[in-house]
């Protein structure tokens, strides 16, 4: 129960952060990616702010033997850079550049009620299901 409250609170903080920072707005994301245009560096400040908390947090928290409410930390096990990582990141980058949406902002932006956002998220889930199906 407490774990579920953390999930809800964690999601809410994350969604609020994406909204306050303007990252739910594809115009601001494209403004960052458009280095040859009227460049908007805001996205770098968002990542910087997040890392300012996350870097010391991981250092301190991962010294614990286990999480407060769970038995173990679920960390990625893969260590090598392989073709899947590179290919997946490249495809994701093209999609991100086309729409100005990555997964978190797209899901959060559903709250705008705009139809194309729903279309993006539906297509994203189809893409995820396609990967699951072929893998």
């Amino acid at each position, binding site marked *: 129960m407490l774990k579920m409250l953390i999930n809800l609170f964690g999601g809410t903080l994350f969604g609020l952060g994406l909204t306050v920072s303007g990252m739910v707005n594809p115009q601001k994301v494209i403004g960052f990616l458009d280095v040859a245009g009227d460049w908007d560096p805001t996205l770098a400040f968002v990542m910087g702010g997040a890392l300012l908390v996350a870097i010391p*947090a991981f250092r301190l928290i991962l010294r614990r033997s286990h999480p407060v409410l769970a038995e173990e930390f*679920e960390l990625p096990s*893969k260590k090598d850079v392989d073709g899947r990582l590179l290919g997946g990141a490249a495809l994701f*980058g093209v999609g991100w550049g086309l*729409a100005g949406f*990555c997964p978190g902002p797209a*899901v959060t932006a559903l709250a705008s009620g705009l139809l194309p956002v729903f279309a993006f998220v539906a297509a994203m889930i189809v893409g*995820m299901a396609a990967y699951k199906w072929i893998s």
Partner: protein
Amino acid sequence: MENFTPINGLIGGLLIGLSTALMILFNGKIAGISGIVGGLLARKGSEVGWRAVFVMGLLLGAFVYMLATGGPIPVNLQASLPVMVVAGLLVGFGTRLGSGCTSGHGISGIARFSKRSIVATLVFMGMAIITVFVTHHVL
């Protein structure tokens, strides 16, 4: 740089970092959105429940913003509907194949100094910059 909003960006970033810290400290989970959304397709109920609650939280965060400001969330779309669909497919497939997105690789992974995440972030950011350059300045 007329649209540059560093203070809001920094505050929002701190909130995202705080969420990432809470998720790992209490539940031992990485706050990576593509993994969380992709995991909703799992058949096991134990995998789906916490993810669904986190995703509801994302939307709740947007509603909290709307309540606090009394206005809509700022979403200015930059692509036509067909392009949005193609982009969605690429983002969904690509993030699963590449094991993460801007949050899982770009924040949690970089914060752990993971080589895979640093490389992935450079690749997806580089490809996104090239894509925007081509669609905005070449085509």
